[in-house]
Structure formats: structure tokens, C-alpha cells
């Protein structure tokens, strides 16, 4: 996946380990041996990057579950998924 749009269906790599926490989650990428910590909304977005949900779906879902955003919900989702992508956590 190179360019994201509302119809894109991001798909997390199966190899990435996900560990839920009380206040978010952590991801561990065994390939790069790196750990990433996620706040609750980023953890929510990660769980919805299942190849079934489009970014539009994720934006809708996040509006239902979270109320406070630094940017708009859509910007938050795009920013987070772009970050996952740049960290090579998503399947191509």
C-alpha cells in the first residue's frame, strides 16, 4: 500500500505481536526487533486494520468510541495509519 485514501483497507502484518494494556497497547515487530507503544485510540485503529475495514469505516468507528482528538477524527486515523505504514507494520 503506498497511497492511502478513504477506500483503502489497511491490513496489519500477522507477524506483529499485539499486547493490550490498561492505557493502550504495545506492538512488537520481531523482524526489526522494535517495540512501539500505542495510546488507546491508536490501539483501537490497529485492531481495525484487518483488511476488512476501510479507512472510512475506521473513521466512523473511532467517532463512535472516542470523543477527544487533537485533529479531526479522519486526520487522526490517516496520521496513525500513515505512521504504521512508515514503520512497516502493515502488509503491502
Amino acid at each position, binding site marked *: 500500500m503506498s497511497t492511502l485514501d478513504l477506500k483503502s483497507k489497511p491490513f496489519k502484518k500477522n507477524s506483529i505481536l499485539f*499486547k493490550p*494494556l490498561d*492505557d*493502550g497497547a*504495545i506492538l*512488537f515487530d520481531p523482524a526489526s*526487533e522494535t*517495540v512501539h*507503544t*500505542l495510546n488507546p485510540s491508536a490501539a483501537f485503529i490497529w485492531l481495525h486494520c484487518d483488511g476488512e475495514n476501510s479507512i472510512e469505516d475506521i473513521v466512523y468507528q473511532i467517532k463512535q468510541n472516542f470523543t477527544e482528538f487533537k485533529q479531526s477524527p479522519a486526520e487522526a486515523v490517516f496520521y496513525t495509519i500513515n505512521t504504521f505504514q512508515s514503520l512497516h507494520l502493515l502488509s503491502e
Partner: protein
Amino acid sequence: MRSSITSGNPAVCISLQHPKSLYQQITNSVFSELVSNQKVIPDVQYRIIFKNGKYLLFRNNRQTHQNRSVNRIIYALEWQVVADILNNFKTELKLHAASLTFQQKGYLFIGNSGTGKTSVSIALMQQGWQLLSDEFGILNPISFEVYPFPRNILIKPHHPINQIEKENYLSIKLRTNHNINAIYYFPPSYFGQTGAKQVPLKKIFFLHPVASESYKIKAMGQREAIENLLRSISNSNLIKVNFEQFITNFLERVKVYELFLPNPLNLPVKVLQKLSSQLVQEPLKC
């Protein structure tokens, strides 16, 4: 003359051969709790000789240092032996932390240099805690046990210890950015007791020095706790094989807090007593 040092898990045996005149300095160096006259089958051999006005230090027959100052050569010996002992903990995590035990439970105090690890160690030893290490926290990533490494305590100029007392102990002058400071090696027994066995880790406190007169303890969220813990481990490659298990065990077994603490050696006794009992509270009320 021969001395020996035995420490670690499994134990590493180190033999020291040195001029008789250095015996006092060596036993007063960081190894006062570990050094003995026992004969050992050494894993590592050190030898110090005095030749042409200089001390020469050899490790396994290979010269590693030379210096005219006996303190300098013992300082070099110390750090090599520290590395030998730490390297022998092949399956344990190493953290820049003070570790103490109270009633067979382990506590880590993590912070950068100058955040008060040594001061909190001394203060709590005076409240009946036992020192495991004031500089290196050694943690088994599976059992979550903390291991002792009872080096001597390095007393720096900001520690409020009587200068007359300091003169009884080995010192070395270290250059910092702006000046030259004397550091003194105090045996842990000067301040209290040391723990000899590994104990299960119960709590971690991240130290924040503050200028206020009272301390504050704040529970740390899981995400921040993991971020801070991972930053503090110097050999985190050890946990990458069983990362999920490590995190699961960590979250189940260890509580993590931030400790905002003025110099504990300047706290009134009553406040220090309250701090000591609050740190071991289950559950800890912040």
C-alpha cells in the same frame, strides 16, 4: 600476595595477585564485601606488579593498564572486575538502578546519574532495608528475581557524609566538566546490611529529584512503565525472544511508580520512616 573475589550467578572466581602493600587498598575498594584470602580456581586472573615507578595491571597475563597512582590502577581493576561479574550474568537483564530488598521482596530505583539512587539506598538502609546494589540492577527476565551485586558504595561530593569519615576510605579523583571531584568507596556495611540472595521484584520506582521539602509517589500507567523500563535495560536483546511472556509477567508481578524525592539524606527522620513504610505498602497508597 593473593586475594580472591567470588560473585555472580553462576559465580565467577577471580584471583588477584598483588604486592602486599596494596592489600588494604584492594580490600577497601569496591569489593570489600566480596574479597577474601580464599584460594579459588580462577576463571579470571589479575596481577598487579610495581616496576620502574609504575603499577602494571595484567588480566590473564595480558597487560591492560599502567599508572603511577595506586588508586588509578585499583580503579582500573575495579571496572574490569565489575565487567567480569556483570558479563557472567548471561541470562539476566542489566539496568542502571539501585536495588534493595525489604522482607524478602525486591525493589528497583531507576534513574540517571544524579537522580538519587545512592542517596535513596543509604537512606533506606538506615531504615532496615538491605542493599542488593546501588548501581546495577540485575533482573532475571523469567523469574523476575533481582540479584545482589554488593559493590562498595561510591560517595560523591553531594552526599552529606562527614569529611573525617570519608578520609578513612579509599578515594579517587575524577574529572567532571568543571572540576575534579573526589569519590570515596564506602563499604555497604557502613550504612547497614546487604542482601545475599536473589528476591522477587515487586516494585519499580523511577526517581525524579525535586527541590521541595516533601516527597510524592505517583502510580505509572502501563504504557509509560513499559516505555521507561525498556529504556533502562542495557541488554534488552535478551527479552526479544520471549517478549510477550516478559511483558505479561512484568504486568502481573511488578507495580511501577514515579518517586518525586528531595535528597532523602536531608529528610527528617519521621518523613524518612513514613517514606520507608509507604514504599512497601500493599497496595501502595499514593
